[in-house]
């Protein structure tokens, strides 16, 4: 997902006299500064998601505290928790109902690969959100700390727009 999948309106228009790149970049930077997540907390990781939205970790510094209950109004689906076979059609429906452009963040070990519930003889869970959804960012942890969720948001920001919020301290 991301910039590559946005239907391009550039075909057919010679690039000599209409330049879209700057507008695209600007629009993408505006997009990443105002992600609207879908309130889709399934299990324990949902509590850390709520804690991130609250006063101490404050997701609204990054523009992402506007949790929308309706998929029609959101653009990031944070899959926070274990996905069961019973729940999977519901998640797919919610994902399909989100309008483009949309992204998916897999929060926690269960959404990445089944987590601690992937054992020999398991009969009830799907081993990770990427079995049926295109996941953009994986945030590991059981549950991941709120700072890890914020890092995931920042990684998603970079993935969508190419713009980094601040310089990588290790690269400096």
């Amino acid at each position, binding site marked *: 997902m991301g910039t590559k999948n946005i239907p391009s309106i550039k075909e057919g228009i010679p690039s000599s006299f209409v330049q879209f790149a700057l507008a695209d970049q600007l629009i993408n930077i505006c997009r990443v500064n105002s992600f609207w997540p879908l309130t889709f907390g399934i299990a324990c990781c949902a509590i850390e998601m709520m804690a991130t939205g609250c006063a101490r970790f404050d997701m609204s510094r990054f523009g992402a505290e506007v949790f929308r209950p309706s998929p029609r109004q959101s653009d990031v689906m944070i899959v926070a928790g274990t996905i069961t076979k*019973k729940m999977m059609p519901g998640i797919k429906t919610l994902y399909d109902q989100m309008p483009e452009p949309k992204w998916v963040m897999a929060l926690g070990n269960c959404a990445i690969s089944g987590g601690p519930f992937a054992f020999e003889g*398991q*009969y009830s869970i799907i081993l990770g959100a990427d079995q049926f959804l295109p996941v953009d960012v994986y945030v590991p942890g059981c549950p991941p700390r709120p700072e890890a969720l914020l890092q995931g948001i920042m990684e998603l920001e970079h993935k969508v727009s190419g713009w980094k919020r601040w310089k990588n301290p290790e690269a400096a």
Partner: protein
Amino acid sequence: MIVEKTKLALLNLFPQSEPVAAAAPAPLQEEGEKKAPKKEPPRMNGVMERDYNVHGYHLDAQVSPAQLLDAVAIIDDAGFFIESITGVDWIKEDQLEVIYDFSRYDFDLCRVVIRTRVPRSKPVVPTITGMYAGANWHERETHDFFGIKFEGHPNLIPLLLPEDADFHPLLKDFKA
């Protein structure tokens, strides 16, 4: 004492047998003995008292499925609340056991466990939802996990498993 009263009331269901003394705990396997554990005879229907400090409950009554409703009626009249219902798969003895836990709200503590065994090939137990409405979900869950049919249950459809599930995961011979 409610423990004595309930025990005597439950004993009325078993006119033939004598009251059994507190059951001695089964011997622990020592390190040296690697022989197969000697087979204990199957437990007869009856009431026994258990050591609360070891087992965590006071009275243990094993009944036949036909006596189940009478036993639960005694417990209901005495004012117990239903704690849970669950099942155990004794595959070696080819039986399924249904365990009912009851306890009290007042300070007159008494935990009662009622058990009943049915053959694995035809696991049918009467429902107690007529007396305890809370048994509804517990019985559905036991049916989900073990396949035990509770006859008379108003709505015996899967509770925790998907609606179209036809497997019973906690049976010992279940393969995912």
